[in-house]
């Protein structure tokens, strides 16, 4: 279980990192937390000839509130997001999700940017940023661009990042009040990726009508999935048990889970409906407890 030999590069700033990444192209991989990359390298499923350690680059680790957004640097550790009272207060969906991501050790090193760039179909951050309609700020040779979360995940373990590009920051629009967000996930063992998971962020009025909703699903396909058609179905609707049930069936319909060690597509579809419905019911209950 040893990786193939590689050269270890330690850029001291972002420009240098981008330059190295662009020069080495397909032969290079970025090392952020390494909690997904290093296992892949040990299994030799990833064989970079150059490993560009981003951890020496400063200025990529921060959580701040600015212009109606929560801005999180790509190298911010999951553990830091978990401990952040700003995150807990402003985007409780993120707090809920990060608590069940991996385990303590993984959260100490793993980063938000790295997790998103790894684009695991069963990862937890993907669905969350999809539900929140976040923007991924990418930096490449001579340019910076924003990619909407819905356009970021393209294929299994693949993203819209081009050669030489890396994730610099994730910008999350601050949810409206009352802040109704939740993440529900089934995992086979503690610390595992999801069998299936549903991230929801909703705007529900006092009569139980869904003004707006964002839905991200994990384990529902080859990459983290935004359930846009389910969102459309629910907008403007009263969230009765019957409506939630119908939406659950729609989630099954639009999902296309891959078969793997965690389950068959049929099993995952079953689980998806359950976690989605539970999550949505939970939000309705949360809303009912708000006075106005």
């Amino acid at each position: 279980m040893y990786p193939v030999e590689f050269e270890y590069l330690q850029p001291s700033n972002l420009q240098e990192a981008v330059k190295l990444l662009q020069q080495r192209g397909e032969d290079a991989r970025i090392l952020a937390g390494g909690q997904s990359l290093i296992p892949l390298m040990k299994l030799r499923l990833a064989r970079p000839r150059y490993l560009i350690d981003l951890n020496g680059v400063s200025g990529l680790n921060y959580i701040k509130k600015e212009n109606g957004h929560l801005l999180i640097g790509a190298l911010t550790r999951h553990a830091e997001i978990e401990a952040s009272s700003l995150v807990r207060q402003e985007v409780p969906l993120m707090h809920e999700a990060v608590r069940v991501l991996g385990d303590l050790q993984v959260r100490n090193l793993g980063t938000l940017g790295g997790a998103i760039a790894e684009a695991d179909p069963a990862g937890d951050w993907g669905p969350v940023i999809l539900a929140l309609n976040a923007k991924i700020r990418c930096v490449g040779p001579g340019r910076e661009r924003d990619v909407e979360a819905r356009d970021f995940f393209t294929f299994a373990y693949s993203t819209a990042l081009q050669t030489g590009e890396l994730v610099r920051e994730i910008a999350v629009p601050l949810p409206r009040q009352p802040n109704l967000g939740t993440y529900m996930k089934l995992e086979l063992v503690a610390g595992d990726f999801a069998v299936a998971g549903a991230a929801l962020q909703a705007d529900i009025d006092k009569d139980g009508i869904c003004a707006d909703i964002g839905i991200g699903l994990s384990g529902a396909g080859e990459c983290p999935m935004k359930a846009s058609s389910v969102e459309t179905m629910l907008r403007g609707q009263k969230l009765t048990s019957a409506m939630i049930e119908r939406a659950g069936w729609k989630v099954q319909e639009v999902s296309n889970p891959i078969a793997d060690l965690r389950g068959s597509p049929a099993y995952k579809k079953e689980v998806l409906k359950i976690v989605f419905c539970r999550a949505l019911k939970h939000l309705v209950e949360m809303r009912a407890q708000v006075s106005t």
Partner: protein
Amino acid sequence: MQKEINVKVNGKEHLVKVECRTLLIHMLRDDLGLTGAHIGCVVGKCGACTVLWEGRQVKSCMVFAVQTSGSEILTIEGLAQNGHLHPLQQAFWDLDAAECGYCTPGMIMAAYGFLQKHQNPSDSEIKHAISGNLCRCTGYHNIVKAIKKAAGELEERENHG
């Protein structure tokens, strides 16, 4: 591709020649002779290799040794002071929190890091803290009890100087 790195382990400076691909666990065990950290699964799931890197619990099979150059590492061998067991080690002993002992060093290091930052933890907080450490023998019950006991011990020491 070889690199020479300097790393402080359990308070002592070391200059080690490693390959870029050498994992931290292998450097600790094979180059430094610190075999307390164990290799349980190799795939980063069991936590038996847990050590503290700059005060944070990490699985040393998921870190390259070269990443730790210039930093500090604490392993199980670094806990006992002047021949006295750390309260965690003592509690594990007193409450039979180890059977085969394979998961134990990693379990204790995970708990050590946790107790550095948390006083008076609840059972569920302890369980959350050790969720990255698998034990095939004990069923975790005595482990949680031992960590709770050690937490009390450490708090008392803190209060009574």
